Protein backbone atom coordinates (compact mmCIF):
# COMPACT_ATOMS: atom_id res chain seq x y z
CA UNK A 1 0.00 0.00 0.00
CA UNK A 2 1.32 3.43 -0.86
CA UNK A 3 1.77 5.74 2.11
CA UNK A 4 -0.96 8.33 2.57
CA UNK A 5 -0.52 12.06 2.21
CA UNK A 6 -1.10 12.28 5.95
CA UNK A 7 0.30 9.44 8.05
CA UNK A 8 -0.14 9.27 11.79
CA UNK A 9 1.45 6.35 13.62
CA UNK A 10 0.96 5.46 17.28
CA UNK A 11 0.63 9.07 18.24
CA UNK A 12 0.36 9.92 21.92
CA UNK A 13 0.26 13.25 23.65
CA UNK A 14 -0.25 14.55 27.17
CA UNK A 15 -0.65 17.94 28.77
CA UNK A 16 1.20 17.46 32.02
CA UNK A 17 -0.19 14.34 33.59
CA UNK A 18 -3.43 14.16 31.64
CA UNK A 19 -3.26 12.03 28.54
CA UNK A 20 -4.98 13.66 25.62
CA UNK A 21 -4.23 11.20 22.84
CA UNK A 22 -3.25 7.57 23.01
CA UNK A 23 -1.82 5.42 20.22
CA UNK A 24 -3.69 7.10 17.40
CA UNK A 25 -3.07 5.61 13.95
CA UNK A 26 -4.61 6.92 10.80
CA UNK A 27 -3.92 7.50 7.14
CA UNK A 28 -5.40 10.06 4.78
CA UNK A 29 -4.81 9.44 1.10
CA UNK A 30 -4.68 12.15 -1.54
CA UNK A 31 -8.13 13.18 -2.64
CA UNK A 32 -9.64 11.90 0.57
CA UNK A 33 -11.50 13.61 3.37
CA UNK A 34 -10.92 11.90 6.68
CA UNK A 35 -13.54 12.84 9.26
CA UNK A 36 -12.25 12.94 12.79
CA UNK A 37 -15.42 12.74 14.83
CA UNK A 38 -15.72 13.25 18.55
CA UNK A 39 -17.40 15.28 21.26
CA UNK A 40 -15.82 18.45 22.60
CA UNK A 41 -12.79 17.64 24.69
CA UNK A 42 -11.95 14.29 23.12
CA UNK A 43 -8.67 15.52 21.61
CA UNK A 44 -9.63 16.51 18.05
CA UNK A 45 -7.92 19.90 18.12
CA UNK A 46 -4.78 18.50 19.72
CA UNK A 47 -4.61 15.82 17.04
CA UNK A 48 -4.95 18.40 14.26
CA UNK A 49 -2.28 20.62 15.78
CA UNK A 50 0.09 17.66 16.06
CA UNK A 51 -0.67 16.62 12.49
CA UNK A 52 0.16 20.03 11.06
CA UNK A 53 3.28 20.47 13.15
CA UNK A 54 2.10 23.04 15.66
CA UNK A 55 2.68 20.63 18.53
CA UNK A 56 5.37 18.00 19.01
CA UNK A 57 4.19 14.47 19.81
CA UNK A 58 5.22 12.80 23.07
CA UNK A 59 5.60 9.58 21.14
CA UNK A 60 4.70 8.30 17.72
CA UNK A 61 5.18 9.76 14.29
CA UNK A 62 3.50 12.19 11.96
CA UNK A 63 4.32 12.46 8.28
CA UNK A 64 2.70 14.88 5.89
CA UNK A 65 3.52 14.44 2.19
CA UNK A 66 6.40 12.23 3.27
CA UNK A 67 7.97 14.78 5.60
CA UNK A 68 7.99 15.93 9.18
CA UNK A 69 5.12 18.44 9.37
CA UNK A 70 7.42 20.98 11.00
CA UNK A 71 9.81 21.13 8.07
CA UNK A 72 9.98 24.52 6.41
CA UNK A 73 9.46 23.17 2.91
CA UNK A 74 5.96 22.08 3.86
CA UNK A 75 4.84 25.55 4.88
CA UNK A 76 3.57 26.34 1.38
CA UNK A 77 1.75 23.09 0.77
CA UNK A 78 -0.18 22.53 3.97
CA UNK A 79 -3.01 24.63 5.35
CA UNK A 80 -4.47 24.66 8.82
CA UNK A 81 -7.83 26.28 9.52
CA UNK A 82 -8.27 26.47 13.29
CA UNK A 83 -11.62 26.82 14.99
CA UNK A 84 -12.91 30.37 14.70
CA UNK A 85 -10.30 31.01 12.01
CA UNK A 86 -9.16 34.61 12.22
CA UNK A 87 -10.01 36.72 9.24
CA UNK A 88 -9.43 40.43 9.35
CA UNK A 89 -12.89 41.93 9.75
CA UNK A 90 -11.79 45.40 8.65
CA UNK A 91 -10.18 44.18 5.46
CA UNK A 92 -12.32 43.53 2.41
CA UNK A 93 -12.75 40.07 0.92
CA UNK A 94 -10.11 40.65 -1.71
CA UNK A 95 -7.70 42.29 0.75
CA UNK A 96 -7.95 39.28 3.03
CA UNK A 97 -7.12 36.96 0.14
CA UNK A 98 -4.12 39.04 -0.95
CA UNK A 99 -2.92 39.21 2.60
CA UNK A 100 -2.75 35.41 2.75
CA UNK A 101 -1.13 35.29 -0.68
CA UNK A 102 1.62 37.62 0.61
CA UNK A 103 2.01 35.52 3.71
CA UNK A 104 2.75 32.52 1.51
CA UNK A 105 5.08 34.52 -0.72
CA UNK A 106 3.07 34.26 -3.93
CA UNK A 107 4.21 36.75 -6.53
CA UNK A 108 1.70 39.34 -7.68
CA UNK A 109 0.60 37.90 -11.03
CA UNK A 110 0.27 34.41 -9.55
CA UNK A 111 -1.65 35.78 -6.58
CA UNK A 112 -4.02 37.71 -8.84
CA UNK A 113 -4.84 34.63 -10.89
CA UNK A 114 -5.32 32.46 -7.85
CA UNK A 115 -7.53 34.98 -6.06
CA UNK A 116 -9.71 35.46 -9.14
CA UNK A 117 -10.12 31.70 -9.48
CA UNK A 118 -11.05 31.31 -5.81
CA UNK A 119 -13.57 34.15 -5.96
CA UNK A 120 -15.30 32.46 -8.88
CA UNK A 121 -15.29 29.01 -7.35
CA UNK A 122 -16.63 30.10 -3.99
CA UNK A 123 -19.31 32.42 -5.29
CA UNK A 124 -17.58 35.30 -3.53
CA UNK A 125 -17.17 37.10 -6.85
CA UNK A 126 -19.27 40.24 -6.59
CA UNK A 127 -18.43 40.60 -2.90
CA UNK A 128 -14.77 41.56 -3.41
CA UNK A 129 -15.08 44.93 -1.74
CA UNK A 130 -17.25 43.92 1.16
CA UNK A 131 -15.53 43.97 4.53
CA UNK A 132 -15.10 40.51 5.99
CA UNK A 133 -16.80 41.66 9.17
CA UNK A 134 -19.95 42.38 7.19
CA UNK A 135 -20.27 38.94 5.60
CA UNK A 136 -22.86 36.40 6.70
CA UNK A 137 -21.61 33.41 8.71
CA UNK A 138 -21.64 31.14 5.70
CA UNK A 139 -19.82 33.62 3.46
CA UNK A 140 -17.26 34.16 6.18
CA UNK A 141 -16.51 30.44 6.26
CA UNK A 142 -16.14 30.38 2.49
CA UNK A 143 -13.71 33.27 2.68
CA UNK A 144 -11.77 31.51 5.44
CA UNK A 145 -11.53 28.39 3.31
CA UNK A 146 -10.47 30.47 0.31
CA UNK A 147 -7.70 32.08 2.36
CA UNK A 148 -6.52 28.62 3.35
CA UNK A 149 -6.58 27.60 -0.32
CA UNK A 150 -4.58 30.56 -1.63
CA UNK A 151 -1.26 28.70 -1.44
CA UNK A 152 -2.70 25.66 -3.30
CA UNK A 153 -2.09 23.29 -0.40
CA UNK A 154 -1.89 19.53 -0.90
CA UNK A 155 -2.86 18.71 2.66
CA UNK A 156 -5.42 20.55 4.76
CA UNK A 157 -6.39 20.44 8.41
CA UNK A 158 -9.82 21.87 9.18
CA UNK A 159 -11.08 22.21 12.73
CA UNK A 160 -14.91 22.29 12.92
CA UNK A 161 -15.19 24.80 10.09
CA UNK A 162 -18.99 24.81 9.94
CA UNK A 163 -19.73 25.50 13.59
CA UNK A 164 -22.45 28.12 13.87
CA UNK A 165 -23.29 27.99 10.18
CA UNK A 166 -26.85 27.38 8.92
CA UNK A 167 -27.68 24.29 6.82
CA UNK A 168 -27.76 26.15 3.50
CA UNK A 169 -24.33 27.65 3.99
CA UNK A 170 -23.03 24.38 5.32
CA UNK A 171 -24.05 22.60 2.15
CA UNK A 172 -22.43 25.29 0.04
CA UNK A 173 -19.26 24.92 2.09
CA UNK A 174 -19.22 21.18 1.48
CA UNK A 175 -19.72 21.61 -2.24
CA UNK A 176 -16.64 23.73 -2.24
CA UNK A 177 -14.78 21.14 -0.23
CA UNK A 178 -15.86 18.37 -2.62
CA UNK A 179 -14.19 20.37 -5.37
CA UNK A 180 -10.99 20.64 -3.34
CA UNK A 181 -11.04 16.91 -2.69
CA UNK A 182 -11.50 16.22 -6.40
CA UNK A 183 -8.25 18.08 -7.05
CA UNK A 184 -6.44 15.50 -4.96
CA UNK A 185 -5.97 17.40 -1.71
CA UNK A 186 -5.83 15.28 1.44
CA UNK A 187 -8.08 16.70 4.13
CA UNK A 188 -8.23 15.91 7.83
CA UNK A 189 -11.56 17.28 9.02
CA UNK A 190 -12.55 17.52 12.67
CA UNK A 191 -16.22 17.69 13.58
CA UNK A 192 -18.58 16.93 16.44
CA UNK A 193 -21.43 16.21 14.02
CA UNK A 194 -22.19 12.73 12.79
CA UNK A 195 -24.17 14.01 9.82
CA UNK A 196 -21.10 15.82 8.58
CA UNK A 197 -19.01 12.70 9.04
CA UNK A 198 -21.33 10.95 6.56
CA UNK A 199 -19.85 13.12 3.83
CA UNK A 200 -16.28 12.01 4.49
CA UNK A 201 -14.51 9.17 2.68
CA UNK A 202 -13.24 7.69 5.91
CA UNK A 203 -14.24 8.34 9.46
CA UNK A 204 -12.49 7.82 12.78
CA UNK A 205 -14.51 7.94 15.99
CA UNK A 206 -12.43 9.59 18.68
CA UNK A 207 -13.34 8.90 22.28
CA UNK A 208 -11.23 9.99 25.25
CA UNK A 209 -8.18 10.39 23.04
CA UNK A 210 -8.45 6.99 21.41
CA UNK A 211 -9.69 6.10 17.95
CA UNK A 212 -12.43 3.70 18.93
CA UNK A 213 -13.26 2.72 15.36
CA UNK A 214 -12.45 3.77 11.85
CA UNK A 215 -13.71 2.92 8.40
CA UNK A 216 -15.91 4.22 5.62
CA UNK A 217 -19.22 5.73 6.74
CA UNK A 218 -20.99 2.72 5.26
CA UNK A 219 -18.84 0.24 7.20
CA UNK A 220 -19.38 2.14 10.41
CA UNK A 221 -23.14 2.46 10.02
CA UNK A 222 -23.75 -1.27 9.86
CA UNK A 223 -24.98 -2.29 13.27
CA UNK A 224 -23.35 -5.71 13.24
CA UNK A 225 -26.20 -7.93 12.07
CA UNK A 226 -28.75 -5.99 14.05
CA UNK A 227 -31.81 -4.39 12.44
CA UNK A 228 -32.89 -0.80 12.92
CA UNK A 229 -36.62 -0.14 12.90
CA UNK A 230 -38.51 3.08 13.41
CA UNK A 231 -41.88 3.25 15.09
CA UNK A 232 -44.15 6.17 14.36
CA UNK A 233 -47.67 7.04 15.46
CA UNK A 234 -49.34 9.19 18.08
CA UNK A 235 -47.65 9.11 21.45
CA UNK A 236 -44.93 6.59 20.62
CA UNK A 237 -42.61 8.41 22.99
CA UNK A 238 -44.73 7.43 25.98
CA UNK A 239 -44.12 3.78 25.08
CA UNK A 240 -40.33 4.00 25.22
CA UNK A 241 -39.86 2.38 28.63
CA UNK A 242 -42.14 -0.54 27.78
CA UNK A 243 -40.54 -1.10 24.40
CA UNK A 244 -37.16 -1.41 26.10
CA UNK A 245 -38.40 -4.47 27.94
CA UNK A 246 -39.66 -6.32 24.85
CA UNK A 247 -37.92 -9.48 23.66
CA UNK A 248 -35.16 -8.98 21.13
CA UNK A 249 -34.82 -5.26 21.76
CA UNK A 250 -31.28 -4.02 22.29
CA UNK A 251 -31.50 -0.26 22.32
CA UNK A 252 -34.42 2.17 22.08
CA UNK A 253 -34.05 5.86 21.50
CA UNK A 254 -36.86 8.36 21.12
CA UNK A 255 -36.23 11.19 18.67
CA UNK A 256 -39.09 13.64 18.61
CA UNK A 257 -42.26 11.69 18.01
CA UNK A 258 -40.61 8.58 16.67
CA UNK A 259 -38.86 5.69 18.33
CA UNK A 260 -35.76 4.16 16.82
CA UNK A 261 -35.28 0.57 17.92
CA UNK A 262 -32.27 -1.68 17.38
CA UNK A 263 -33.41 -5.30 17.26
CA UNK A 264 -30.96 -8.05 18.11
CA UNK A 265 -29.51 -10.02 15.18
CA UNK A 266 -32.01 -12.57 13.87
CA UNK A 267 -34.94 -11.30 15.89
CA UNK A 268 -37.91 -11.42 13.50
CA UNK A 269 -39.51 -8.06 12.90
CA UNK A 270 -42.95 -9.74 12.83
CA UNK A 271 -42.43 -10.91 16.37
CA UNK A 272 -41.52 -7.38 17.41
CA UNK A 273 -44.62 -6.09 15.67
CA UNK A 274 -46.83 -8.49 17.62
CA UNK A 275 -45.15 -7.68 20.92
CA UNK A 276 -45.49 -3.98 20.24
CA UNK A 277 -49.20 -4.28 19.48
CA UNK A 278 -49.70 -6.27 22.66
CA UNK A 279 -48.74 -3.10 24.54
CA UNK A 280 -52.09 -1.75 23.35
CA UNK A 281 -50.89 1.51 21.88
CA UNK A 282 -53.39 4.38 21.98
CA UNK A 283 -53.25 4.72 18.19
CA UNK A 284 -52.07 2.39 15.42
CA UNK A 285 -48.31 2.33 15.05
CA UNK A 286 -46.32 2.20 11.88
CA UNK A 287 -43.22 0.03 11.99
CA UNK A 288 -40.58 0.27 9.29
CA UNK A 289 -37.06 -1.02 8.86
CA UNK A 290 -34.72 1.88 8.42
CA UNK A 291 -31.29 2.42 6.99
CA UNK A 292 -28.97 3.18 9.87
CA UNK A 293 -26.98 6.38 9.90
CA UNK A 294 -23.60 6.75 11.53
CA UNK A 295 -25.37 8.37 14.44
CA UNK A 296 -27.74 5.40 14.88
CA UNK A 297 -24.87 2.92 14.78
CA UNK A 298 -22.68 4.94 17.14
CA UNK A 299 -25.55 5.27 19.56
CA UNK A 300 -26.14 1.52 19.54
CA UNK A 301 -22.51 0.73 20.18
CA UNK A 302 -22.09 3.28 22.92
CA UNK A 303 -25.28 2.20 24.66
CA UNK A 304 -24.34 -1.48 24.50
CA UNK A 305 -20.79 -0.76 25.61
CA UNK A 306 -22.12 0.75 28.80
CA UNK A 307 -24.44 -2.15 29.49
CA UNK A 308 -27.07 0.33 30.31
CA UNK A 309 -29.68 0.71 27.62
CA UNK A 310 -31.21 3.73 29.34
CA UNK A 311 -27.85 5.38 29.22
CA UNK A 312 -25.99 7.26 31.85
CA UNK A 313 -23.11 8.86 30.14
CA UNK A 314 -20.90 11.82 29.67
Amino acid at each position, binding site marked *: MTPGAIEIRDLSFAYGKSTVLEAVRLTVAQGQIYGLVGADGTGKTTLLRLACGQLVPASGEVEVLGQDPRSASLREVIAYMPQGFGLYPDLTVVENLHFFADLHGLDRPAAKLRVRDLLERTGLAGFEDRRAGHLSGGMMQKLALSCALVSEPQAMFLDEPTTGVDPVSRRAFWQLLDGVRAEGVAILYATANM*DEAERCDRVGLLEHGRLRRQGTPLELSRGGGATLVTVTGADTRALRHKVRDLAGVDVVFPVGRRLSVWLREGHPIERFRQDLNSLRPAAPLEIRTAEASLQDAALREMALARHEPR*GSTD
Partner: protein
Amino acid sequence: MGQQTEARVSAPDAAVIRARGLSRRFGPFLAVEALDLVVSRGEVFGLLGANGAGKTTTIRMLCGTLPLTAGDIRVVGIDMVRHARRARAHIGYVSQRFALYEDLTVEENLRLQAGLYGLTGARRRERILWALEQLELAPRRRHRARDLPLGYKKRLALGAALLHEPQVLFLDEPTSGVDPLARQTFWEMIYSLAEGGIGILATTHYMDEAAFCDRLALMHAGRIAAEGSPDDLLERRLEGAILTLRALDCARCAQWLGQWVEVREVIPHAGRLRARLQPGVEPEALMRRLRAAADQKGIAICELAVAAPELEDVFVSVLEEAGAVETRP
Protein backbone atom coordinates in the same frame (compact mmCIF):
# COMPACT_ATOMS: atom_id res chain seq x y z
CA MET B 1 -50.60 27.08 7.56
CA GLY B 2 -52.63 24.48 9.42
CA GLN B 3 -50.22 24.08 12.28
CA GLN B 4 -50.17 27.76 13.06
CA THR B 5 -53.93 27.93 13.32
CA GLU B 6 -53.97 24.92 15.54
CA ALA B 7 -51.43 26.57 17.84
CA ARG B 8 -53.49 29.74 18.02
CA VAL B 9 -56.72 28.08 19.00
CA SER B 10 -55.21 25.79 21.65
CA ALA B 11 -56.84 26.37 25.03
CA PRO B 12 -55.32 29.25 26.99
CA ASP B 13 -54.48 27.10 30.00
CA ALA B 14 -52.35 24.82 27.81
CA ALA B 15 -50.04 27.66 26.77
CA VAL B 16 -47.06 28.43 28.96
CA ILE B 17 -45.81 31.03 26.50
CA ARG B 18 -47.99 33.07 24.24
CA ALA B 19 -46.37 35.83 22.24
CA ARG B 20 -48.29 38.01 19.79
CA GLY B 21 -46.95 40.52 17.31
CA LEU B 22 -43.53 40.40 18.89
CA SER B 23 -41.23 43.01 17.32
CA ARG B 24 -37.86 44.46 18.13
CA ARG B 25 -36.07 47.24 16.34
CA PHE B 26 -32.42 48.19 16.77
CA GLY B 27 -32.11 51.60 15.14
CA PRO B 28 -33.14 51.14 11.51
CA PHE B 29 -32.83 47.34 11.77
CA LEU B 30 -35.91 45.27 12.45
CA ALA B 31 -34.46 42.20 14.17
CA VAL B 32 -37.80 40.54 14.90
CA GLU B 33 -40.98 41.40 13.06
CA ALA B 34 -44.54 40.64 14.22
CA LEU B 35 -43.75 37.19 15.51
CA ASP B 36 -46.51 34.97 16.92
CA LEU B 37 -45.47 32.03 19.00
CA VAL B 38 -47.13 29.58 21.39
CA VAL B 39 -45.48 26.93 23.52
CA SER B 40 -47.83 24.54 25.29
CA ARG B 41 -47.46 22.51 28.43
CA GLY B 42 -45.67 19.21 27.79
CA GLU B 43 -44.43 20.37 24.42
CA VAL B 44 -40.87 20.54 23.14
CA PHE B 45 -40.78 23.46 20.75
CA GLY B 46 -37.73 24.21 18.60
CA LEU B 47 -36.82 27.62 17.26
CA LEU B 48 -34.38 27.26 14.39
CA GLY B 49 -32.45 29.66 12.29
CA ALA B 50 -29.03 30.81 11.22
CA ASN B 51 -27.04 33.29 13.25
CA GLY B 52 -28.67 36.65 12.71
CA ALA B 53 -32.12 35.23 11.96
CA GLY B 54 -33.50 36.74 15.17
CA LYS B 55 -33.49 33.72 17.51
CA THR B 56 -31.48 35.30 20.30
CA THR B 57 -33.41 38.56 20.17
CA THR B 58 -36.64 36.57 20.43
CA ILE B 59 -35.43 34.55 23.40
CA ARG B 60 -34.18 37.66 25.19
CA MET B 61 -37.61 39.24 24.83
CA LEU B 62 -39.34 36.08 25.99
CA CYS B 63 -37.09 35.96 29.06
CA GLY B 64 -37.90 39.56 29.85
CA THR B 65 -34.32 40.79 29.51
CA LEU B 66 -34.90 42.88 26.37
CA PRO B 67 -37.77 45.38 26.06
CA LEU B 68 -40.13 44.87 23.12
CA THR B 69 -40.65 47.44 20.40
CA ALA B 70 -44.18 46.10 19.97
CA GLY B 71 -46.25 43.08 20.93
CA ASP B 72 -47.40 41.14 23.90
CA ILE B 73 -45.95 38.21 25.85
CA ARG B 74 -47.68 36.06 28.43
CA VAL B 75 -45.87 33.50 30.52
CA VAL B 76 -48.37 31.15 32.17
CA GLY B 77 -50.89 33.92 31.62
CA ILE B 78 -48.80 36.64 33.29
CA ASP B 79 -48.05 39.75 31.28
CA MET B 80 -44.27 39.84 30.81
CA VAL B 81 -44.21 43.56 29.98
CA ARG B 82 -46.11 44.68 33.06
CA HIS B 83 -45.08 42.06 35.58
CA ALA B 84 -41.64 40.99 34.39
CA ARG B 85 -40.47 39.74 37.80
CA ARG B 86 -43.53 37.63 38.43
CA ALA B 87 -43.44 36.22 34.93
CA ARG B 88 -39.73 35.49 35.07
CA ALA B 89 -40.15 33.43 38.23
CA HIS B 90 -41.77 30.78 36.03
CA ILE B 91 -38.87 30.56 33.60
CA GLY B 92 -35.76 28.41 33.73
CA TYR B 93 -32.91 29.21 31.37
CA VAL B 94 -29.97 27.08 30.31
CA SER B 95 -27.40 28.97 28.29
CA GLN B 96 -25.19 27.41 25.69
CA ARG B 97 -22.06 28.11 27.69
CA PHE B 98 -21.62 26.62 31.14
CA ALA B 99 -22.54 29.43 33.51
CA LEU B 100 -21.93 27.74 36.86
CA TYR B 101 -18.86 27.70 39.07
CA GLU B 102 -16.11 25.38 37.88
CA ASP B 103 -14.43 25.30 41.31
CA LEU B 104 -17.53 24.27 43.21
CA THR B 105 -18.81 20.71 43.42
CA VAL B 106 -22.03 19.61 41.82
CA GLU B 107 -23.88 19.86 45.10
CA GLU B 108 -22.34 23.22 46.06
CA ASN B 109 -23.36 24.66 42.73
CA LEU B 110 -26.93 23.49 43.26
CA ARG B 111 -27.00 24.89 46.82
CA LEU B 112 -25.71 28.23 45.62
CA GLN B 113 -28.28 28.41 42.83
CA ALA B 114 -31.07 27.40 45.21
CA GLY B 115 -30.02 30.27 47.46
CA LEU B 116 -30.10 32.69 44.53
CA TYR B 117 -33.64 31.57 43.78
CA GLY B 118 -34.54 32.26 47.40
CA LEU B 119 -35.23 28.65 48.33
CA THR B 120 -34.71 27.83 52.01
CA GLY B 121 -35.03 25.05 54.56
CA ALA B 122 -36.80 21.83 53.68
CA ARG B 123 -37.82 23.01 50.24
CA ARG B 124 -34.22 23.79 49.35
CA ARG B 125 -33.04 20.33 50.47
CA GLU B 126 -35.91 18.69 48.66
CA ARG B 127 -35.26 20.47 45.38
CA ILE B 128 -31.53 19.77 45.44
CA LEU B 129 -32.20 16.09 46.07
CA TRP B 130 -34.72 16.10 43.28
CA ALA B 131 -32.20 17.60 40.85
CA LEU B 132 -29.50 15.12 41.86
CA GLU B 133 -31.84 12.18 41.31
CA GLN B 134 -33.78 13.37 38.29
CA LEU B 135 -30.65 14.26 36.31
CA GLU B 136 -28.72 11.24 37.57
CA LEU B 137 -26.07 13.44 39.15
CA ALA B 138 -26.09 11.83 42.60
CA PRO B 139 -23.01 9.62 42.08
CA ARG B 140 -21.03 12.73 41.16
CA ARG B 141 -22.42 15.12 43.76
CA ARG B 142 -18.98 15.71 45.30
CA HIS B 143 -17.11 16.16 42.01
CA ARG B 144 -15.97 19.61 41.10
CA ALA B 145 -17.77 21.02 38.08
CA ARG B 146 -14.54 21.47 36.15
CA ASP B 147 -13.81 17.74 36.37
CA LEU B 148 -17.15 16.71 34.90
CA PRO B 149 -17.46 15.44 31.34
CA LEU B 150 -19.34 17.87 29.11
CA GLY B 151 -22.57 15.83 29.14
CA TYR B 152 -22.70 16.00 32.94
CA LYS B 153 -21.98 19.71 32.95
CA LYS B 154 -24.96 20.21 30.67
CA ARG B 155 -27.12 18.19 33.03
CA LEU B 156 -25.88 20.13 36.04
CA ALA B 157 -26.78 23.39 34.30
CA LEU B 158 -30.19 21.92 33.52
CA GLY B 159 -30.67 20.85 37.15
CA ALA B 160 -29.75 24.31 38.40
CA ALA B 161 -32.27 25.92 36.04
CA LEU B 162 -35.05 23.69 37.38
CA LEU B 163 -34.60 24.23 41.13
CA HIS B 164 -37.33 26.86 41.39
CA GLU B 165 -39.80 24.60 39.52
CA PRO B 166 -40.29 26.72 36.44
CA GLN B 167 -43.20 26.07 34.07
CA VAL B 168 -41.13 27.05 31.05
CA LEU B 169 -37.63 26.02 30.18
CA PHE B 170 -35.41 27.76 27.62
CA LEU B 171 -32.55 25.77 26.15
CA ASP B 172 -29.92 27.31 23.91
CA GLU B 173 -28.23 24.71 21.69
CA PRO B 174 -28.48 22.33 24.61
CA THR B 175 -26.45 19.44 23.24
CA SER B 176 -23.98 20.97 20.82
CA GLY B 177 -20.58 19.33 21.09
CA VAL B 178 -21.56 16.24 23.09
CA ASP B 179 -21.36 12.64 21.90
CA PRO B 180 -24.44 10.86 20.52
CA LEU B 181 -25.23 8.95 23.69
CA ALA B 182 -24.89 12.00 25.94
CA ARG B 183 -27.17 13.88 23.55
CA GLN B 184 -29.75 11.11 23.65
CA THR B 185 -29.61 10.91 27.45
CA PHE B 186 -30.06 14.66 27.77
CA TRP B 187 -33.09 14.75 25.48
CA GLU B 188 -34.74 11.86 27.27
CA MET B 189 -34.44 13.86 30.47
CA ILE B 190 -36.10 16.73 28.63
CA TYR B 191 -38.90 14.39 27.54
CA SER B 192 -39.46 13.33 31.15
CA LEU B 193 -39.70 16.98 32.17
CA ALA B 194 -42.19 17.62 29.37
CA GLU B 195 -44.24 14.65 30.55
CA GLY B 196 -44.29 16.35 33.94
CA GLY B 197 -46.02 19.33 32.34
CA ILE B 198 -43.24 21.82 31.63
CA GLY B 199 -43.18 23.60 28.27
CA ILE B 200 -39.79 23.66 26.57
CA LEU B 201 -38.39 26.07 24.02
CA ALA B 202 -35.07 25.08 22.48
CA THR B 203 -33.07 27.15 20.01
CA THR B 204 -30.60 25.55 17.67
CA HIS B 205 -29.24 25.52 14.16
CA TYR B 206 -28.35 21.85 14.22
CA MET B 207 -30.76 19.60 12.38
CA ASP B 208 -29.92 16.64 14.57
CA GLU B 209 -31.07 18.64 17.59
CA ALA B 210 -34.15 19.91 15.79
CA ALA B 211 -35.27 16.33 15.19
CA PHE B 212 -35.84 15.94 18.93
CA CYS B 213 -38.55 18.62 19.02
CA ASP B 214 -42.31 18.06 18.76
CA ARG B 215 -42.85 21.25 16.81
CA LEU B 216 -40.47 23.49 14.94
CA ALA B 217 -40.42 27.06 13.72
CA LEU B 218 -37.76 28.13 11.28
CA MET B 219 -36.79 31.79 11.56
CA HIS B 220 -35.40 33.84 8.77
CA ALA B 221 -34.87 37.61 8.76
CA GLY B 222 -36.87 38.14 11.94
CA ARG B 223 -39.91 36.15 10.82
CA ILE B 224 -41.09 32.56 10.94
CA ALA B 225 -40.58 31.12 7.46
CA ALA B 226 -42.02 27.66 8.21
CA GLU B 227 -43.64 25.97 11.17
CA GLY B 228 -44.97 22.52 12.07
CA SER B 229 -44.07 19.15 13.51
CA PRO B 230 -41.04 17.47 11.91
CA ASP B 231 -43.46 15.10 10.14
CA ASP B 232 -45.60 17.99 8.85
CA LEU B 233 -42.51 19.69 7.53
CA LEU B 234 -41.32 16.52 5.86
CA GLU B 235 -44.61 16.37 3.97
CA ARG B 236 -44.10 19.76 2.37
CA ARG B 237 -43.68 19.55 -1.36
CA LEU B 238 -40.14 20.48 -2.22
CA GLU B 239 -39.36 22.36 -5.40
CA GLY B 240 -36.77 19.82 -6.46
CA ALA B 241 -37.07 16.04 -6.03
CA ILE B 242 -34.38 14.00 -4.33
CA LEU B 243 -32.82 10.84 -5.69
CA THR B 244 -30.86 8.29 -3.74
CA LEU B 245 -28.27 6.17 -5.42
CA ARG B 246 -25.59 3.65 -4.69
CA ALA B 247 -22.72 2.92 -7.04
CA LEU B 248 -19.64 0.71 -6.98
CA ASP B 249 -17.38 3.73 -7.25
CA CYS B 250 -19.22 6.42 -5.33
CA ALA B 251 -16.58 9.12 -5.70
CA ARG B 252 -16.46 8.79 -9.49
CA CYS B 253 -20.22 8.59 -9.66
CA ALA B 254 -20.60 11.72 -7.53
CA GLN B 255 -18.41 13.66 -9.91
CA TRP B 256 -20.27 12.41 -12.94
CA LEU B 257 -23.62 13.18 -11.36
CA GLY B 258 -22.54 16.69 -10.43
CA GLN B 259 -22.05 17.50 -14.12
CA TRP B 260 -25.72 17.01 -15.01
CA VAL B 261 -27.52 20.35 -15.33
CA GLU B 262 -30.65 18.75 -13.87
CA VAL B 263 -28.80 18.04 -10.63
CA ARG B 264 -28.62 20.89 -8.16
CA GLU B 265 -26.31 19.23 -5.66
CA VAL B 266 -24.88 15.84 -4.75
CA ILE B 267 -24.63 14.90 -1.11
CA PRO B 268 -22.73 11.82 0.02
CA HIS B 269 -24.66 10.19 2.82
CA ALA B 270 -23.59 7.02 4.65
CA GLY B 271 -22.09 5.37 1.61
CA ARG B 272 -24.85 6.49 -0.74
CA LEU B 273 -25.34 9.58 -2.78
CA ARG B 274 -28.32 11.87 -2.51
CA ALA B 275 -28.93 14.08 -5.51
CA ARG B 276 -31.17 17.09 -5.19
CA LEU B 277 -32.69 17.96 -8.54
CA GLN B 278 -33.40 21.37 -10.00
CA PRO B 279 -36.97 22.60 -9.56
CA GLY B 280 -39.33 21.10 -12.15
CA VAL B 281 -37.09 18.21 -13.19
CA GLU B 282 -39.19 15.06 -13.57
CA PRO B 283 -37.39 12.39 -11.53
CA GLU B 284 -38.61 9.26 -13.37
CA ALA B 285 -37.52 10.52 -16.76
CA LEU B 286 -34.18 11.66 -15.41
CA MET B 287 -33.55 8.29 -13.75
CA ARG B 288 -34.10 6.52 -17.08
CA ARG B 289 -31.60 8.82 -18.76
CA LEU B 290 -29.12 8.45 -15.90
CA ARG B 291 -29.26 4.66 -16.12
CA ALA B 292 -28.70 4.66 -19.86
CA ALA B 293 -25.83 7.15 -19.64
CA ALA B 294 -24.20 5.27 -16.77
CA ASP B 295 -24.23 2.05 -18.80
CA GLN B 296 -22.42 3.79 -21.62
CA LYS B 297 -19.88 5.35 -19.29
CA GLY B 298 -19.25 2.10 -17.46
CA ILE B 299 -20.48 3.46 -14.16
CA ALA B 300 -22.07 0.65 -12.17
CA ILE B 301 -25.18 1.95 -10.43
CA CYS B 302 -26.48 -0.62 -7.93
CA GLU B 303 -29.52 1.29 -6.80
CA LEU B 304 -31.40 4.35 -7.96
CA ALA B 305 -34.68 5.60 -6.55
CA VAL B 306 -36.65 8.66 -5.51
CA ALA B 307 -35.93 9.42 -1.85
CA ALA B 308 -37.98 11.03 0.85
CA PRO B 309 -36.62 14.41 1.92
CA GLU B 310 -34.91 14.85 5.25
CA LEU B 311 -35.46 17.72 7.65
CA GLU B 312 -32.36 19.45 6.38
CA ASP B 313 -33.63 19.26 2.78
CA VAL B 314 -36.83 20.95 3.87
CA PHE B 315 -35.03 23.75 5.66
CA VAL B 316 -32.63 24.33 2.86
CA SER B 317 -35.50 24.62 0.43
CA VAL B 318 -37.52 26.91 2.73
CA LEU B 319 -34.52 29.18 3.15
CA GLU B 320 -33.89 29.22 -0.57
CA GLU B 321 -37.51 30.15 -1.22
CA ALA B 322 -37.25 32.88 1.42
CA GLY B 323 -34.31 34.30 -0.48
CA ALA B 324 -31.86 33.51 2.29
CA VAL B 325 -29.21 32.39 -0.14
CA GLU B 326 -26.96 35.24 -1.06
CA THR B 327 -25.63 34.89 -4.55
CA ARG B 328 -25.42 38.54 -5.46
CA PRO B 329 -24.45 41.51 -3.37
